């Protein structure tokens, strides 16, 4: 592995365990803190939506269409793996269709 990959794994492990440890030590106080509450409640969802937006920026129409398919599957199934599989199938199909 590259040193960047090692660094990613080690830092992510420390960060993930740090959150759990903070939960054990002062979880109730932190969760109820009025200043932190908006971040804890809203940040994770917004981040994921931001990730979707960033990965769609500048992509061709076929990617956006596949994203709509994936969104529909996600709403119906609420299942990550099913959404990934059908989403991938949609974009591969879309790419094949746009070639012809």
């Amino acid at each position: 592995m590259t040193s960047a990959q090692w660094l990613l794994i080690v830092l992510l492990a420390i960060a993930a365990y740090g959150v759990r440890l903070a939960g054990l030590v002062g979880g109730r106080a932190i969760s109820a803190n009025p200043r932190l509450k908006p971040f804890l409640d809203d940040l994770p969802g917004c981040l994921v939506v931001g990730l979707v937006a960033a990965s769609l920026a500048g992509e061709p129409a076929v990617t956006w269409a596949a994203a709509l398919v994936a969104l529909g599957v996600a709403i119906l199934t609420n299942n990550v793996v099913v959404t990934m599989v059908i989403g991938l199938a949609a974009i591969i199909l879309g790419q094949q269709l746009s070639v012809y």
Partner: protein
Amino acid sequence: MKQGFLSILPLAAGAALYGFAFGVLAAQIGFPWWGVALMSGLVHAGSSQIVAVEQFGSHGFVLGAVLAGAALNLRYLGIIASLSEVLRDVPMRLRLLAIHITGDENWALTMARRARDPDIGAAFLIGSGLTMISVWVISTTAGALIGGAIPDLEGYGLGFAFTAAFIAMARAMWRGRQVILPWAITFAATLALVRAGMGPAFAIVLGSLAGVAIATLDRSRRRQDIA
């Protein structure tokens, strides 16, 4: 403990599929199978790992990838805090292990069983947690072994598998109509910032902060309406 070990198996099967998919993607981005195994054992957080690996793969920016991954795991503050009663009589060493092996599935199962049967406690949590982390490490490693052996999927829209995963994660985080406005703002702001030439990692953070700010304003406005 044995009861917890076995009761969680059906839920662990769902996590295994997700883990397998993550392993395939991580291997395609260039992680060796043992690196994936190491990460899964040390981090043990599905959505954090998938986000961090995608950010790392597309931008190679370690700190941004770690922050994005860790921020997604903030829900564990509340999850672990809710276990204080379950873990009260457990020795500290075991407690430090228990919080690492706890995942969404076995936490939810432990809390649900405990509501009906007060005898369900730390042993059940730890037994089911051991199943969860074992299944997670094994399934991600298996995915990485397969992903490393098959040809490069990049041309077939591999990157889109991550996009689809993020869309599904957002669906799972849906908490009712109050998220529509902050999510729309986040989406529009992030898209505009990336289009304007900002690096995606920064655009995602700024876009999300804009969404959080709107959500906070919206909440205080509603509170005033009630008052």
